[in-house]
């Protein structure tokens, strides 16, 4: 059945090519229908775990290459949420493409992304994983850059990084195949585990190849630059998909391969160094996540482009999830997966709200916007709930997942990781408020006086996302119960949780009570508000201007909106750091250029000489093959 779904995706994508350009929204309707059908089947499979399928596509000299699919709890959870959120995005896209002469190929390649999405999450072996991984990379390349020069530059960067990561992964897969003569993931990591005691250097190398493969995709340091470019330049509705869903593939890879490996090491600590109860390797990786989140937070505080800001926020959130996952306790892994899912939900909401703003105003730089909340209340509320969730404030879903991460970090005694997460989470509040103010609050510029709320079809996904954010925040058990089955599949203790209460060793929290307390307090505030004398509304420019009449000195609403250089003095604190990094990268660039020129010259100046080198290198490789194999 999985194969049929994938195949039908391919077929419908070709079908969608025949839709006339005038009716191009019809392609998106086809896309939505396909997603809905997929979602229906996924829902049917909610209890049929470990059902597998195999398709043999090549037999060479007795070796069978086949696509193997298996429904694991982890894969099912990821695929269900990603397909559901993509369905919401596709509803948004239908309206966006009415009347807009968008590129034909976006929806065409998006079908392939969905196909590879399902393929990756249900992959049972490395070959399947890698094939769909590459399909995903290539098709996303074409979606991000439908022919615009600026986005082409951004996507080039993304593409080079992704392919590089994928090739490293292929290298690792090759090594594992050499060792086990199979593509099976499980035998892969058990083999790698045994290799750790036999040949530590090689095994560390193999692990690093996989880490590079997964970390480039999930944009962790030092590959944290690409989302800010690719997410910002991609088509607006696709940014939601990129940021909410696609960046999670790397984390899925971590959960699929690295986490079981490290869990094995943790449970049988024979050769590896164990720090604080977890393998050193995994400890380092969780630090990578924490540092990523801190740096991305500070970069987000500085950015003035709203989509870039949201992209940096994504990187920071991925940082939390990575940190939490590599803690390797059941709370850590549960918190990490929970964070991945809640982040997918609220970041989709945030990006859809931003896409709605851009749909109406065609502006991306925040200081040119302002006051849109008075014109677009639904978009504003979506964004508001989104940032409340992203800042981890109760009772939205972001807080539940962050609470889990803190429980994992604190009960595992990681004070400095906790403080790093805390720093970036407080910083998140800073940049999210900046976005809220600059886009939606403050003064509405005169040029946006006739901006209207987005059409109803675009509002539908926003309403659903708002409800979802609140629902999963008040009843975190909805997501945590499926996560428990994932934990059981990792042979970990499931976390103790009911629909509205989360328990940990340090404390427990009843989200429903938290929510009701806030509602009660709001009701109390509202009663006080009614007791006070009634207020009257005044014009936006009837404002404190130190006694001066704004009309007389030509003050417009646009000029009275404070948004540019919002945290400038704060940014100045990091000036020296910034110049140092810039110098470092500049000198690095110069060195690379010099090296490249040197090689280029040695080739082009003397052809005979360079051909000698080439032949020598070839002989060396052949000799190495003879000697080693």
């Amino acid at each position, binding site marked *: 059945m999985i194969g049929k779904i994938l195949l039908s995706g391919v077929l419908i994508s070709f079908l969608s090519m025949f839709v006339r350009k005038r009716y191009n929204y019809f392609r998106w309707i086809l896309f939505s229908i396909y997603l809905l059908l997929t979602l229906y089947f996924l829902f049917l499979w909610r209890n049929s775990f470990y059902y597998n399928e195999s398709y043999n596509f090549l037999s060479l000299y007795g070796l069978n290459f086949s696509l193997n699919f298996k429904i694991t709890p982890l894969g099912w959870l990821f695929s269900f949420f990603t397909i559901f959120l993509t369905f919401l995005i596709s509803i948004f896209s239908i309206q966006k493409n009415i009347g807009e002469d968008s590129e034909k190929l976006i929806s065409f390649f998006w079908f392939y992304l969905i196909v590879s999405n399902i393929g990756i999450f249900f992959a049972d072996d490395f070959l399947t994983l890698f094939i769909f991984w590459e399909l995903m990379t290539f098709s996303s390349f074409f979606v991000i850059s439908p022919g615009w020069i600026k986005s082409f530059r951004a996507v080039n960067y993304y593409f080079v990084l992704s392919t590089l990561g994928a090739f490293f992964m292929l290298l690792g897969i090759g090594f594992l195949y050499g060792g086990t003569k199979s593509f099976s993931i499980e035998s892969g990591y058990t083999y790698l585990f045994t290799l750790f005691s036999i040949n530590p250097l090689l095994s560390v190398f193999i692990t690093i190849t996989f880490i590079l493969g997964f970390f480039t995709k999930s944009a962790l340091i030092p590959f944290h630059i690409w989302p800010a470019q690719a997410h910002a330049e991609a088509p607006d509705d696709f940014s939601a998909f990129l940021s909410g869903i696609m960046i999670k593939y790397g984390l899925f890879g971590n959960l699929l391969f690295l986490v079981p490996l490290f869990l094995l090491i943790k449970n049988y600590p024979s050769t590896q160094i164990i720090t604080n109860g977890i393998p050193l390797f995994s400890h380092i990786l969780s630090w990578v996540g924490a540092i990523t989140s801190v740096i991305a937070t500070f970069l987000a505080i500085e950015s003035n482009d709203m989509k870039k800001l949201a992209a940096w926020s994504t990187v920071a959130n991925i940082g939390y999830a990575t940190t939490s996952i590599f803690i390797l306790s059941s709370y850590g892994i549960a918190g990490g997966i929970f964070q991945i899912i809640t982040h997918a939900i609220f970041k989709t909401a945030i990006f859809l709200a931003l896409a709605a703003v851009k749909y109406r105003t065609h502006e991306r730089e925040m200081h040119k916007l302002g006051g849109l*909340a*008075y014109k677009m209340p639904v978009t504003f509320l979506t964004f*508001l709930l989104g940032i*409340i969730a992203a*800042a981890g*404030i*109760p009772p939205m879903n972001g807080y539940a997942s*962050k*609470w889990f991460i803190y*429980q994992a970090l*604190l009960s595992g005694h990681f*004070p400095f990781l906790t*403080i790093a997460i*805390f*720093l970036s989470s*407080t*910083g998140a*509040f*800073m940049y999210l*408020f*900046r976005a*809220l*103010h600059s886009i939606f*609050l*403050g003064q509405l510029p005169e040029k946006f006086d006739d901006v209207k709320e987005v059409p109803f079809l675009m509002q539908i996904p926003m309403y659903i996302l708002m409800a979802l954010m609140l629902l999963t925040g008040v009843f975190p058990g909805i997501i945590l119960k499926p996560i428990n089955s994932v934990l059981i599949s990792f042979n970990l203790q499931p976390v103790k949780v009911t629909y509205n209460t989360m328990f940990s060793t*340090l*404390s*427990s*929290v*009843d989200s429903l*009570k*938290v929510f009701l*307390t*806030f509602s*009660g*307090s709001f009701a*109390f*505030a509202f009663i*006080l*508000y009614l007791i*006070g*004398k009634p*207020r*009257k*509304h*005044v*014009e936006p*420019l*009837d*404002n*404190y201007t*130190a006694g001066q009449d704004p009309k007389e000195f030509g003050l417009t*609403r646009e000029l*009275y*909106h*404070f948004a540019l250089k919002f*945290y400038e*003095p*704060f940014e*100045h604190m990091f000036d020296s750091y910034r110049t140092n990094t810039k110098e470092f990268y500049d000198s690095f660039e110069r060195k690379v250029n010099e090296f490249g020129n040197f090689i280029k010259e040695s080739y082009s100046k003397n052809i005979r000489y360079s051909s000698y080198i080439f032949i020598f290198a070839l002989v060396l490789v052949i000799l190495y093959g003879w000697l080693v194999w």
Partner: protein
Amino acid sequence: MVKTYIFRFLIAVLTSIFMGLLYMGIGRKFMARIRRCYAGPFYQSYIDVIKLFSKNSISHNWIMDFGVMMGFAGIIATVVFLPIGPFNVFPDMKGNIIIIMYFMTIGYLGMAMGVAASGNPNATIGIARALSLMIGYEIPFALSVILLIFANRSSLLYDMVLSQHGSFLNWNMFRYPFAFAGSLIALQGMLGEQPFDAMIAPAEIASGPMVELSGKFLGFGFLQHASQIFLETGIIAAMFLGGGTILGFFTKQLILYLITLSIAAVFSRYRFEDAVKFFWIIPTLLVLLQLVIFLA
């Protein structure tokens, strides 16, 4: 069941408002005595609040109304989770410190949203400063929270209170003096007293966030500040001064508030980026020292 909860909720909220306003009044009296004058009666703050709610007011749009209410609601909702002496609203969540720390932010967010919707740049500049300052003082405060969570193996404030029972030498203030000093400086920043009051600089940015608040909106601001004083001194009192009986708890809160005021009385204002740097260096190092001593 629900009725008792509502009753307890109201007790917690009304206590916080009542006591917070009382502390504010006493604080004003105290400040005046430092400056060798008398100031109004100790119940001056109640008069102010009633007057503010009896005045006409303006707002610029519905977000301003909504934001100001949300700001107040956020703070009083957090007070509900604070163990007021031995009194707890929820028997199963006796002051979960992580919830308290994150719930407080909804109050800040609401107030920030309300005043930003007024469209006055002075208000937004004030908010930008307040948020930058927040990233400063939250670090030492969070570090000392982490320290106490490690020490007590529980993230409930009430468990921390219980662990300090007995002689006053059991108080965490004496067990972890450096952490207490760091948190006290953080408290100064949380309450926005000098030298960390750059966000409400009256002559420079016309009292910052409050610039467009009139009548009952300013009244909400007043009440929020009162509850905030109650909440934040309450957290420190429970963490380091051993909670105690209800009266003892109130006394400890008042003493903490008066300490911050007496520091405020002799200091002028830091530029806020300097304040952030200061928070990241002195109090953070103090608490880190304590953490290292504890872990070692």
